């Protein structure tokens, strides 16, 4: 896989000396290779895998650890991508978890009332997510109110709505229905599917390719499509984008609709992993949604995204979760380490940039 490190190219002549490049570009462009945050993530992840593996051999157990780990990585990769879509604009989506919850409700409702097949229900859920995200985008674009406030309020509103809907439709907090194929998607790995003598790798769950496909699609959109480039332009400088003839309002709606769609996909996969469409889907999405892209080098300020970094960030986070879990830490204790890792990673990132700049300026 190629590095999907996507930035709006700064308009400068090609003969610009490397020194200036190092001072103006963001990390990863024009900086020495060791200043690339993605490389750091790979090293840290590999080191942690080695440590956890030597402390607890069960860490390499396929059924116990690897398969659930990859399934979780897929879910939280998509959650991170949902946040990345709006971060490209310099916006935030605090309702990412609740968008997943409301979409999961719609999907569950479609299975119960319309008895649709598994993937039709998924598409209905994605459409619901796109609609809710688009609504958030529309409010932000029309009123110019900060995305933080709008999505925070939306999160509040959806939090109430989801529970009320589950109460009135199911009388409880989850749908009992399980459409055909859901159990296979949940339990099977590629090892269960054989073509003649050759079977797929039994370490990879069926849900993993969905995460990879989502990452490829988002990477493609931001790197090669007009929409993606215009999103990054808008995030870089809204006014400049407007003067270049980009309908920034429409792009804001598009980014939030994409975010809602991806949140819905993450909610669907989590529901499949859990085995039920329930009201608590998406409750823990907020922190990981920022962790993965931010660790991967995506800026909060907008204008630059890194899909590969998001994949690595999501992997690192889930490796920490699974590893410390195997070592017998309680979920709440895990949080201390996750927070410390986040601060350390970002501080080191900052340190790397400062060092690299200094080296670039005074060779």
């Amino acid at each position, binding site marked *: 896989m190629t590095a999907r490190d996507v930035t709006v190219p700064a308009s400068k002549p090609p003969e610009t000396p490397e020194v200036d490049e190092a001072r103006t570009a963001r990390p990863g462009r024009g900086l020495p290779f060791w200043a690339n945050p993605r490389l750091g993530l790979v090293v840290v992840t590999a080191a942690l895998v080695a440590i956890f593996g030597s402390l607890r051999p069960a860490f390499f157990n396929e059924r116990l650890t690897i398969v659930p780990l990859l399934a979780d990585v897929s879910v939280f990769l998509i959650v991170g991508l949902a946040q990345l879509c709006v971060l490209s604009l310099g916006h*935030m989506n605090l309702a990412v978890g609740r968008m997943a919850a409301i979409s999961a409700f719609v999907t569950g409702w479609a299975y119960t009332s319309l008895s649709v097949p598994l993937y039709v229900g998924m598409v209905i859920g994605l459409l619901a997510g796109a609609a809710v995200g688009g609504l958030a985008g529309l*409010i932000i674009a029309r*009123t*110019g*109110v*900060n995305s*933080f*406030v*709008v999505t*925070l*309020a*939306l*999160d*509040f*509103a*959806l*939090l*109430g*709505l989801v*529970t*009320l809907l589950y*109460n009135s439709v199911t009388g409880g907090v989850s749908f009992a229905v399980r459409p055909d194929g859901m159990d296979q998607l949940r339990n099977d790995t590629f090892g269960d599917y054989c073509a003649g003598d050759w079977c797929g790798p039994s370490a990879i769950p069926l849900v993993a390719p969905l995460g990879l496909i989502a990452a490829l699609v988002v990477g493609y959109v931001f790197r090669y499509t007009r929409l993606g480039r215009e999103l990054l332009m808008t995030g870089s400088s809204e006014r400049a984008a407007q003067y270049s003839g980009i309908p920034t309002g429409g792009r804001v709606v598009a980014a939030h609709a994409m975010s809602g769609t991806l949140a819905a996909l993450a909610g669907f996969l989590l529901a499949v992993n859990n085995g039920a469409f329930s009201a608590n889907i998406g409750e823990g999405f907020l*922190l990981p949604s*920022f962790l993965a892209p*931010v660790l991967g080098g995506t800026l*909060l*300020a907008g204008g630059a995204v890194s899909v590969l970094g998001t994949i690595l960030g999501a992997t690192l986070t889930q490796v920490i979760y699974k590893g410390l879990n195997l070592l017998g830490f*309680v979920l*709440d*204790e*895990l*949080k*201390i*380490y*996750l*927070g*410390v890792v*986040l*601060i350390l990673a*970002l*501080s080191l990132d*900052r340190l790397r940039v400062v060092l690299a700049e200094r080296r670039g300026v005074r060779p």
Partner: protein
Amino acid sequence: MSTVLPPADPTGAPPALRGETARRFYRTSEFSLAVISVVGFCVLAVATDFNLLSGGTLGAFFRFLAVPIVIGLAQMVVLGVGQMNLSVGALTGYCAMTAASLMVEHQVPAVLAVAVAVGLGAFVGAVNGVLVVVTRINGFIVTLATMTILEGLRYGVAGSGTLQGYSPGLQRLGGASLLGVPVIFLAALGVAGLVAFYFRRTVSGRSLLASGGNPFAARLSGISNDRSLVVAHTLSGLLVGVASVLVVAGSGSVNTSIGDDLLLPSFAAPIIGGVALTGGAVSVVGTVLAAFIIRMVDVTQAQFDIDRRWVDLVVGVVVLGAVLIGRVREAVAARMRGGAS
């Protein structure tokens, strides 16, 4: 009243005649909030057959208003410099658990435990501020990280257990009333008064707003933006520490879940109260009134036995409505000014 630095005044008008000032007061969001509060309270009182005005209910109404006010102010202080503090909820829980644990498990006197809680809050706030300044990482991410860490630490104080049976004196103070008004509510109002004084009358408070309104201009005027950031985060942590003391005093027991439901209201109160997220402007009165309105929604739910979840839905819609109305009012005001000139 809203505290805005003169240059940030959107109308750009010079401080004018008294009539003009009065007319401008009617247009402030504080005035609308005050009207909504009074009308809402009267309607609620009538709708509950004046049950709301009976001693016990009214006392409870104000007792549970104290913590949201102080938490809203804690968020407002950092919003004033254009930052956010996501760790308010987790920090409240951590300070409350620490104070309770000191009293229950280590027999520390209540006064000392209260001081430790407030000091701990200020210390964590200062750490937030220093991290923001030293690493230059976005304050949102820093406090997101410290929130996560604090959630873990909060759990570490007493596991999943409940701490109770601490200092009867403190609990008596928490349950006490002065002329029918709960003492902890008066304490919250006192804190609000101090915060208002700080932003209105002290050099430190003014330079904090200057940094929030326009960091570049502030630096040229000789104000250290870094210091403003650290001061704002420390003050926010200090207020959270005070809120945690109110939590401990106001309830007979504390457990790990304390503070989980405080993060969203902490933003709701200042935002409904008209505080801008971009910094440079704060409104103590607006924040207090907004907390009052949110509390009214809460009480309505309890009085009419409505599903708890309706409150979240309504508060969400109210926040959205408040920002939308603010925009509409700005647009109308702009059009009126345009027509007059």
